[in-house]
């Protein structure tokens, strides 16, 4: 049933894309759609494109796994739109440039700087595609019984086909449809679950200090070796043999099945925070294996707020607005819709701790939103609601991934090599293939953490480039290029080191896990310092000022 529902949503989206507009197929149509769209519709479509599977599953899973501090993710995701509103939306729309590489060439007149910006787009696009593919793989693995590598490959193929067939034709309608799907398939089930758990369930979810216990006898199958810290004596069944566990450490090997009795406290896994413990319930970011929660929270906020500003697939959508003013209004609509939506992952995470605490023991916790309905309601309604959530998540996957894949394909085609439509189809396949190859070894990484890296890279590359390009006349091509390289290498390098688990514990690991706090200032400093060494291109000031002139049909009222 789940698979059927997923297919239905995917087909509906494809149908809107195929049939609502039949216009000339030029490369321009394919890339940026036609524009006659109201701010409200455009705002909904930006929200539809932005709310991704990865941010939804990732945040819900991380709330369960590492605590309420993860609620800062949605705050940053939303607050970024405030910066977009005041500093980027209108001037970028008025600059007439469609993509950030276009903007760079427009503003700085430098093909090499354009190429570097194009590479930054690819870096961000691929990093953000990884958690989308991971999540899509996990859904098919969980509900379709498809092995993870095959599930990721299927997901990549589906997105590539969707994009190659539809491009951005009527993407605005498709994405606005996707926002509605997400609201009804992901947020409404959250409300149903809040009602269904009853007063006792709701009270338990917001009182972690009462301790976290298994709601019923639970068999936990470990897929990775773990060390469990048991607080009070408990009688468990380890691989069909009864064992009395005294308080203390109990190592469990790979493949072990442990059955905990009903009401037994959930033991702590070494290397993570205690489920519902003091660190878990303080709203500061405590990601596993890292220290200094206050620093992590700040760094995450910097990454998510500024990262939102630099996301290439969102920037492209600003151009669907008819003018700068409409672009700003669309951003406000988006911000409202995001706030409404982001209550949902928190609900799944918080209820997940009391209802399905076993996910914390086995990890990854990303599947909590998919498992929870079944656990709360039981068959048949639980299975039905789980299917609805899975379909909604898959819609979120398609929406964001097709936007991302399109900017990646456009980036390969336009910014690195020039291309015709035919080439663009090839680049779509190439873009999806790289995303799939990166997602295959990333199976054990938490989706939410990878999302954080994509935002950190965006915040360290395209965001400073845009902000300086729009507001500082002194930016030069050399400065922009140097800043892009330094920001991109440091943020992506830190993410790679974290992904490989190569950073020593303590500050180095924390700095690599949340690089934005140092990589963003570093990139900005390099951009400004290198620009100062040279001279901005002739006419740079006028070009910068021209972006801030409102388009207006009425005669200009001159003040003094």
């Amino acid at each position, binding site marked *: 049933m789940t698979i059927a529902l997923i297919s239905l949503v995917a087909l509906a989206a494809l149908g809107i894309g195929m049939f609502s507009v039949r216009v000339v197929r030029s490369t321009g149509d394919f890339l940026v759609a036609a524009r006659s769209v109201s701010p409200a519709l455009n705002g909904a479509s930006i929200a539809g494109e932005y709310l991704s599977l990865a941010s939804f599953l990732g945040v819900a899973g991380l709330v369960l796994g590492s605590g309420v501090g993860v609620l800062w993710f949605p705050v940053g995701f939303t607050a970024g739109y405030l910066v977009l509103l*005041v500093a980027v939306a209108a001037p970028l729309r008025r600059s*007439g440039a469609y993509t950030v590489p276009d903007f760079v060439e427009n503003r700085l007149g430098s093909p090499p700087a354009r190429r570097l910006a194009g590479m930054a787009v690819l870096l961000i696009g691929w990093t953000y595609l990884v958690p989308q593919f991971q999540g899509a793989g996990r859904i098919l693995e969980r509900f379709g019984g498809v092995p993870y590598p095959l599930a990721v490959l299927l997901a990549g193929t589906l997105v590539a086909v969707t994009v190659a067939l539809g491009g951005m034709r009527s993407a605005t309608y498709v994405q606005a449809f996707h926002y509605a799907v997400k609201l009804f398939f992901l947020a409404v089930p959250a409300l149903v679950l809040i009602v269904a758990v009853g007063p006792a369930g709701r009270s338990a979810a*917001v009182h972690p200090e009462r301790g976290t216990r298994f709601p019923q006898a639970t068999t936990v199958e470990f897929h990775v070796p773990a060390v469990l810290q048991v607080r009070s004596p408990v009688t468990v069944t380890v691989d069909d043999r009864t064992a009395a566990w005294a308080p203390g450490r109990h190592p469990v090997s790979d493949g072990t099945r442990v059955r905990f009795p009903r009401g037994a406290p959930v033991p702590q896994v070494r290397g993570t925070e205690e489920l519902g413990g003091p660190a878990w319930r303080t709203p500061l970011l405590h990601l596993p294996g890292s220290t200094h929660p206050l620093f992590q929270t700040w760094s995450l906020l910097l990454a998510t707020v500024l990262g939102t500003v630099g996301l290439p697939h969102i920037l492209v959508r600003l151009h669907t607005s008819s003018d700068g003013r409409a672009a700003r209004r669309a951003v*406000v609509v988006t911000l409202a819709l995001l706030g409404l939506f982001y209550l949902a992952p928190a609900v799944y995470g918080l209820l997940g701790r009391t209802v399905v605490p076993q996910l914390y023991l086995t990890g990854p916790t990303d599947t909590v939103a998919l498992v929870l309905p079944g656990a709360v309601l039981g068959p048949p309604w639980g299975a039905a609601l789980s299917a609805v959530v899975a379909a909604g998540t898959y819609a979120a996957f398609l929406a964001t991934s097709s936007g991302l894949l399109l900017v990646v394909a456009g980036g390969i085609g336009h910014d690195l090599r020039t291309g015709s439509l035919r080439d663009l189809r090839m680049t779509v396949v190439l873009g999806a293939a790289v995303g799939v190859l990166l997602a295959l070894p990333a199976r054990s990484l938490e989706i939410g953490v990878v999302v954080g890296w994509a935002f950190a890279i965006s915040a360290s590359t395209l965001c400073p480039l845009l902000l300086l390009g729009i507001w500082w006349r002194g930016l030069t091509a050399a400065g922009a290029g140097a800043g892009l390289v330094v920001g991109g290498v440091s943020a992506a390098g830190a993410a790679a080191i974290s992904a490989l688990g190569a950073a020593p514990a303590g500050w180095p690991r924390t700095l690599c896990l949340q690089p934005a706090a140092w990589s963003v200032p570093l990139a900005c400093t390099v951009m400004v310092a290198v620009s100062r060494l040279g001279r901005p291109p002739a006419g740079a000031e006028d*070009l910068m000022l021209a972006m801030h*002139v409102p388009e207006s049909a009425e005669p200009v009222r001159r003040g003094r």
Partner: protein
Amino acid sequence: MSRPRRVAVVSPQTRLALARRSAAGRHLVLPPDFDARAARRAYLRQRRLAGATVLTLATLLLALPLLIATVPQLGTVRLVGVPLSWLLVGVFAHPLLLLAAVALLRRTERAERTR
């Protein structure tokens, strides 16, 4: 309701890039009626607003986690059963951001009406 005509839009840069394939970068030409002094005034007004917004946002986003880290009572005081610190981050932040966005939208648009 009359609908605006649908126009397929391509960035001038993209069209240029497609048309010429190779050739040094040529940048956007300024509009013929470009008034540098008016543009400068518009720019300065928006910069003041953007600067103030970004500074305020940064201060709030630095201060709120610090407050939560230093005042543990926020985790024990409850509103409708939910710890206040959770509500601050998970719920209250969003309407606040929306209010700020609406107010800022009005101010940027007002700044554009006067020249």
